[in-house]
């Protein structure tokens, strides 16, 4: 096996030093009744070349771009990723190092994460951001736990327009502690109904998502005011980080913790993971943050350098009193995001975000003009809901056969919204492809009407 360097001679001489006769003898401390007597029942080894064929075969069973035209987002977004990023991210000095516990040997990772923290904080309009979390759902969950810890209150109000799978994650984490999760209904215009907040006492946080699961941009000003009226943390979240290239950022609305998913920032879809959980807050709460932080300092000669810092919040020091159990995070994904933000720059991110918005508006207007109902009239970024006529499943299947994925049915999450689909348009979709989608939809639509 080419990953195992020992020769028979090496093994023999090392066993002699250890005082064992055979490799099996090395396990003498394992009681006999704990030993596995049979061989593991696993497939025989493949050569590297056989593996190539095997994996290519499996890869071909996946529906992906450019063959398939995706009009689907819902928490995972197809964006262009420059070759320079994939290339830089493949550098083994970044890929094959551990968490930078020894800063003198890890300045590359440390400076890169510090830069990521800075760009992430700037994107969200906050003062500090953490080094990364697993994904958007866990970032939101940990942000709510942070609000619960700081306020000492045990109830959170969560918009029903937060990604349904994020809400499920929150409930899973909260189940044993019994923290109360109150869901806020939505209004006809596709934004959160804050009416219930007034009736709720003992609120640690009010969380909304913007753009929300319907793609609508929430009135964050109003949500923030309402949360603060109740003495609760205002926690805006997001699934599409690129939106903040164009939209006013959460910080400008007075967010206490801004959190969400950064996959859009240069990270491949990869069937949902790894992605990038982002959490940002203001300096006054930095010592309460979950997860790792990199800080700037100086070395013995006074030169700038970077270290992991504020570690007394973390599990390896504080054990059961830690602010989170997280250890391994998604550092390399944070690096990808930093490279992506640096490649775009202020000029580029604005232009790219604008294109996402404009293209989605184009598709929306074409669908409207073709007689489809756009049920929510709040402005959107690159996603929006369309109501298709009953019996649309057949059209959906037909379009899939034509290698077009016309959005995601949201009725499994919102049973009252039968035939409602969430469509997404990023910069990867051309006008031509959108026109083709509309044609495909209208042909069937007119047939359905007949």
């Amino acid at each position, binding site marked *: 096996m080419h990953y195992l360097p020992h020769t028979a001679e090496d093994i023999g*001489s*090392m066993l002699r*030093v250890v005082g*064992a006769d055979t490799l099996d003898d090395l396990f003498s401390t*394992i009681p006999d009744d*704990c030993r*596995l007597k049979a*061989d593991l029942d696993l497939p025989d080894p493949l*050569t*590297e070349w056989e*593996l190539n064929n095997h*994996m290519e075969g499996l890869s*071909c*069973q996946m529906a*992906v771009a450019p063959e398939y035209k995706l009009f689907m987002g819902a928490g*995972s977004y197809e964006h262009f990723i420059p070759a*320079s990023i994939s290339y830089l991210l493949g550098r*083994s*000095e*970044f890929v094959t190092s*551990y968490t930078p516990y*020894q800063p*003198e*040997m890890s300045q*590359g990772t440390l400076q890169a*994460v510090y830069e990521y923290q800075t760009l992430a904080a*700037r*994107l969200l309009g906050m003062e500090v951001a953490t080094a*990364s979390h697993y994904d*958007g*759902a866990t970032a939101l969950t940990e942000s709510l736990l942070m609000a619960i810890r700081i306020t000492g209150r045990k109830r959170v109000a969560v918009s029903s327009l937060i990604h349904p799978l994020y809400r499920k994650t929150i409930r899973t984490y909260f*189940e044993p*502690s019994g923290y109360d999760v109150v869901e806020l209904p939505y209004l006809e215009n596709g934004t959160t109904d804050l009416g219930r907040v007034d009736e709720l006492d003992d609120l640690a946080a009010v969380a909304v998502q913007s753009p929300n699961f319907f793609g609508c941009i929430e009135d964050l000003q109003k949500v923030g005011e309402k949360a603060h009226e109740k003495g609760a943390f205002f926690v805006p979240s997001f699934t599409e980080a690129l939106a*903040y290239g*164009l*939209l006013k950022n959460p910080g400008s609305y007075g967010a206490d913790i801004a959190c969400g998913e950064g996959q859009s920032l240069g990270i491949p879809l990869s069937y*949902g*993971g*790894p*992605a990038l959980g982002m959490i940002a807050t203001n300096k006054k709460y*930095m010592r309460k943050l979950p997860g790792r932080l990199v*800080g700037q300092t*100086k*070395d013995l000669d006074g030169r700038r350098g970077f*270290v992991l*810092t504020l570690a007394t919040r973390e599990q*390896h*020091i504080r054990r059961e009193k830690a602010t989170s*159990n997280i*250890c*391994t995070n998604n*550092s390399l994904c944070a690096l990808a995001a930093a490279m992506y*933000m640096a*490649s775009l720059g*202020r000029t*580029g991110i604005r232009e790219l975000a604008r294109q996402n*918005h404009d293209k989605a508006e184009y598709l929306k207007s074409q669908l409207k003009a073709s007689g489809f109902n756009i049920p929510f009239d709040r402005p959107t970024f690159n996603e929006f809901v369309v109501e298709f006529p009953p019996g649309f499943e057949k059209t959906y299947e037909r379009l*899939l056969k034509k290698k077009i*994925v016309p959005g995601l049915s949201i009725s499994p999450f919102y049973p009252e919204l039968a035939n409602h689909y969430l469509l997404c348009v990023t910069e990867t979709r*051309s006008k031509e492809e959108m026109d083709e989608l509309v044609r495909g939809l209208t042909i069937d639509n007119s047939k359905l009407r007949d």
Partner: protein
Amino acid sequence: MTELMGTTGLILNEPLLWEKGKKGRCGFSLPKQDVEPSPLDPELTGEGPDFPDLSEVDVVRHYTRLSQWNFGLDTGMYPLGSCTMKYNPKTNERQASLPGFSGAHPLLPDTLSQGALRIMFELEQYLTEITGMDAATLQPAAGAQGELTGMLLVYAWHQSRGSRRSKIIVPDTAHGTNPSSAALCGYRPVAVKSNDKGILSAEVVSEVMDEDTAGIMITNPNTLGLFEENILEIADIVHSMGGLVYCDGANMNAVMGVAQMGKIGVDVMQLNLHKTFSTPHGGGGPGSGPVCVKKDLEPFLPVPRIVQKEGRYALDENRPDSIGKLQAFYGNFGVMLKAYCYIRTMGPENLKKASQFAVLNANYIKEMLKDTLHLPFDRPCMHECVFSDKNQTPDHITTLDMAKRLMDYGFHPPTIYFPLVVQGAIMVEPTETESKEDIDRYIEAFKAIVDEAKHDPDLLRQAPHKCKVRRLDETTAARKPCLAG
């Protein structure tokens, strides 16, 4: 030592991103605008983030220079105890970046995702076979989230039997994530001490185990690199009082094909694919922490489950007893892919060999260094061995000093000051992918350093001398945090 491996190559200084660039540059090939502009309500429109504008060359040089300040496993030996820094096969990186995988949207219909589903289904089977358990979930994103998942499963199992318990037993040798994950699940960790052999005795467990204790979290092999020899007896005690046995399987690299936790009393355990199964650590992640369980706990596993019917694979959400979801989608698929490839290229025999060589290498280092460094538990170890700086106390040299000096010799230091039960711990885990020559050089370096400690201690106290920076002021970093520029 004839020649120091460590040398200072031409390493360039590099400013922070925003200290570079010029407004109007861009490092991104912007797509063509092919639709009419459609202005957004100015009320909602922001200024755009304050990012520097850089060219593609600026960005490429920046990160290339930064990368050169890093030491990776591909640079040299990286024997961090408890971290299993084994070689990360390059073919696995290639497979994970195949467009069918990297470009796959997680919400595509099952019929369009058969390749990914099959890989996940088979990987679950391989992991249950390796651990001797009955079922697995791949959803947890890392070891710690696997522990939390395990605790949630334990909680759900108790709840399904109408019981609610408040405590969980956690040995003093446990990794910090264990008590922390237990606490996140509402359990109060009860610490128990390991005995003079460095392992848990059945007696200390039976002293604390009661009917308000949900179970035990045991790391096996433990963080001293020792096999918990009394595991069967301990499991009996815990089970007889209605508790469950959780195993932190981060150290599984020692016992693949040698022992199956499912056959020795363990009910639920996590694996760290980014350790045992060779996926790279990425400077801190992403990892993957699958959880394997015995039959009784299967109904509680997170949704969706991957099922197979007549050769087709599907995601099944319909599990009424499930604990729910640990993250939005199915876990770190990109990491699972690499572990899958690793298992497929190793096969059963080589996985067993990997464990045998990992254990051989650790015992070899232990034997070769035990006259140089203090060895608190002088017994055959598993995949790692733990020394301390006790012998250097007279020279006023600490574990930290020796660790920093190792860098000058061209090695990454071992894990230091963990586990907490050994004062000044030096935890060495060479892994199976280091050759005898490299291991011998490491041993030689350590001996040379211990010698320097006696004759030129300041050399150690000032170390490292050959890195990009010298020792950093961590105290000021924490007292006056500067977390963003």
